[in-house]
């Protein structure tokens, strides 16, 4: 049962790191990266709970594991949408950061191209 303690702490630290990175890092791409980190920390949390609930001959409780599989797919589609938004914003305004002062001159003429 030692791996649940080791990976439980690992899940907690990764979730904290993801939260820290999502807030502190100014670039949107890095925020999406950190958000994925936070997501994987939460999924690890589910994994450890599943491992603790191992019973009836299963190495781990299948219900949280099935939820994590669904969660990873949904997290992927959310990341795909976020990256598409970011790239579209970058094409429209020519700057990769969301700071209001940074929307440079490339704004108007490229949107209706």
């Amino acid at each position: 049962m030692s791996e649940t303690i080791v990976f439980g702490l690992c899940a907690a630290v990764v979730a904290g790191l993801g939260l820290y990175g999502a807030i502190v890092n100014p670039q949107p791409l890095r925020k999406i990266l950190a958000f994925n980190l936070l997501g994987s920390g939460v999924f690890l949390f589910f994994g450890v709970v599943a491992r603790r609930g191992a019973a009836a001959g299963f190495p781990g409780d299948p219900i949280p594991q099935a939820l994590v599989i669904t969660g990873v797919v949904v997290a992927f589609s959310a990341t795909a949408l976020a990256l598409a938004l970011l790239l579209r914003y970058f094409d429209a305004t020519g700057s990769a950061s969301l700071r209001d002062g940074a929307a440079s001159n490339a704004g108007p003429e490229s949107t209706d191209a």
Partner: protein
Amino acid sequence: MTIVPALDLFVAGVVLIVAVWTVVARDSSSAVVGFVAYGLLLALVWVRLGAPDVALTEAAIGSGLTGALLIGAAARLRAGESSTSAEHLGGVGRTLVAALATIVAAAIAVALLSLPDPAPSLAPEAAANAGATGLGNPITNVLMAFRAMDTMLEKFVLVIALVGVWSLAPDGAWGGRPRSYHRADPEGALVFLARVLPPLGVVLGIYVLWVSADHPGGAFQGATILAAMWLVVLMAGLGDVPEVGRQQLRLMLVAGPVVFLIVGLGGLLLGGAFLSYPQDWAKPVILAIEFAMILTVAATLALLVAGPPERSAEP
């Protein structure tokens, strides 16, 4: 044996090193490499946690497709990297956020460590009802039978995400083709890869789906492998993405979820509840759904990575 925790400590230690790297790395391209390595190591963690199905999913989707998306985005954004300003959060702000993050991490750790000793588990119920579907793999049982509603809605989420991505196309390229097209140079190494790898990938994808009835595997993992193979062909320039406005493509994308819905309604009509399978027909029905599902999910995942249309419809 005292040696086994050392293995977990190694794996957890390297996972944390790579996670810190991904957050702290200077430029975003090396952070993305760190994230691909992180997704890979996470697959190791999931194997250690006794969940090979999730390890497959994390490896295929977490580090494979998400990695490809991020690599593409980082490359395109590299041009804009110079224009981003310095940190907008001052020293005090960063320490506050760090404190908040440690509080959240501590809360999660406490919640995990204070689980009651006979931890709450639904495994006995899952084992008791495993006979209903005749499938050996408990996770496929849960995904396709006990919580079939989640899996069906998940497919609708994928299609909705694709609609969202496609709606981001500039007006000129509406209904056109994603990704810019480039001629494949015949003797390139990438073209050789795109000719040799896909057949192996298709066999492995179908194997992962077929084996999921009794051993770790699954329709989503198989679909991810098929999507990756199609993307390798696209990257090599051997094929071109079908234009987004084409009718058959849209029908194919909606086919998977609709089949699932029809089978669910069929269960309702045959006297059972919504999404309940007739007693001795459960396994063939589930496999039929999964085979219908794998193609549409593979196409949806690949088109999500390909991104919104950028060129007008003509080839």
